[in-house]
């Protein structure tokens, strides 16, 4: 058919060869009919195509958006990247604020002021004195009664083995001239109180008990006697404290 179309590109019917004329004899057999078909074939191709209205494309684009709502994978990458960046910024801000706050609370001036306050409290515990007396007074009989209870216990066994139940008796039997009553005051968390010798208040040598005190959390810097523990030597009962800071300093890094 392509060949037939090409035949009509020729100007006249007489330009066709006999074989070509035979090929199109069904369509045209003379010059007049040839020209008629030629006009039809050539001009039909030039018929301008009509264009559909614009709203049709808009409607189709909407349909497309509904059918494929998700963005492509390329679009997801920037979103993930933004999320990562924002989280990193937030984390760095948190770290910065934490460092800033730590530094602001532990300035040298404030630290010295705090230490001075603590020292003042220790030397002038005026408001807590009455409370301390009140708390220690009812405990006095307990301290007095405790040796009696110890002496009322049966004598230790003859085999010489000291059982945990026998320990108080053994302790009572030993000479206890060195024993001292020590009263430790302050909060349990305040470790600075413990090693300092100034905090140990020596009592009369007749007392052979330690007076452990604890702080009532509701009343600041108030002390309450928990119990009086008999002991033969202070050094034996008090747990040995390791100077960890010194030990850590002694450790040399190995590279």
């Amino acid at each position: 058919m392509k060949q037939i179309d090409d035949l009509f590109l020729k100007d006249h019917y007489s330009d066709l060869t006999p074989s070509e004329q035979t090929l199109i004899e069904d369509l045209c057999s003379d010059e007049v009919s040839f020209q008629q078909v030629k006009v039809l074939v050539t001009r039909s191709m030039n018929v301008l195509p009509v264009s559909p209205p614009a709203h049709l494309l808009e409607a189709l684009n909407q349909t497309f958006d509904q059918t494929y709502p998700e963005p492509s994978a390329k679009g997801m990458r920037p979103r993930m990247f933004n999320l990562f960046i924002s989280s990193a910024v937030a984390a760095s801000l948190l770290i910065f604020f934490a460092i800033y706050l730590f530094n602001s609370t532990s300035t040298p001036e404030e630290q010295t002021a705090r230490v001075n306050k603590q020292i003042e409290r220790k030397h002038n515990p005026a408001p807590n004195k009455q409370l301390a007396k009140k708390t220690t007074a009812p405990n006095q009989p307990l301290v007095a009664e405790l040796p009696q209870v110890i002496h009322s216990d049966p004598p230790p066994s003859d085999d010489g083995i000291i059982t945990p139940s026998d320990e108080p008796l053994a302790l009572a039997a030993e000479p206890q001239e060195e024993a001292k009553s020590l009263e430790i005051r302050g909060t349990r968390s305040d470790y600075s109180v413990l090693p300092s010798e100034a905090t140990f208040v020596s009592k009369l040598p007749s007392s052979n008990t330690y007076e452990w005190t604890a702080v009532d959390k509701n009343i600041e810097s108030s002390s309450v006697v928990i119990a009086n523990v008999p002991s033969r030597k202070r050094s034996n009962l008090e747990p040995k404290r390791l100077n960890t800071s010194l030990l850590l300093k002694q450790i040399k890094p190995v590279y």
Partner: protein
Amino acid sequence: MRGLKSGFSHFSDEELMLAIRQGEKTAFNELYQRYSGKLYGYMLKLLWYNEVRAQDLLQDLFTKIITQPHLFDTNRNFKTWVYTIASNLCKNEFKRNEVRKNTSNGLDNHYHVSGAEDVEQTVTDWEFKAALEEELMKLDDKHREVFILKHIDGLSIKEISEIVGINEGTVKSRLFYAIKKLATELKMFELVER
């Protein structure tokens, strides 16, 4: 946007369909630009220039391309496939609405037919087009369809046989008949051309 458009302009129809499957809107727009005008004209002629129906069918066709692009076998020719769908849509429209019964002399009432005296006054492309369309409406559906596909849309005999579902010999015979009929009816243009 233009850059993307030009990116798809060198794609074949089949490649565009693959891109549409992956949700590339620009590929769809490129395909629409290539075929919307031709298909709209084809449908208009088959539906006796009923614009509303032609637009509806064109929208249905492209909606099918959007929603069911997997129906297209990429090993096939897209042009043949899309014209087959258009042809079937129009045939279904014939059956459903019995369009011919509602038209006078095969023409839609909305379509203005130029009189013979108008054609004789000034012969222009537009007038030839109008006269051709008028004569096309007078043809049978089967002859009209083949003529439009061959001489207006520029499809090959093989493609037409695939679209219409007939053998190539039948396409040729129908085409010959249509040309002869139309050429006879439009002989006044041949006279003017001289």
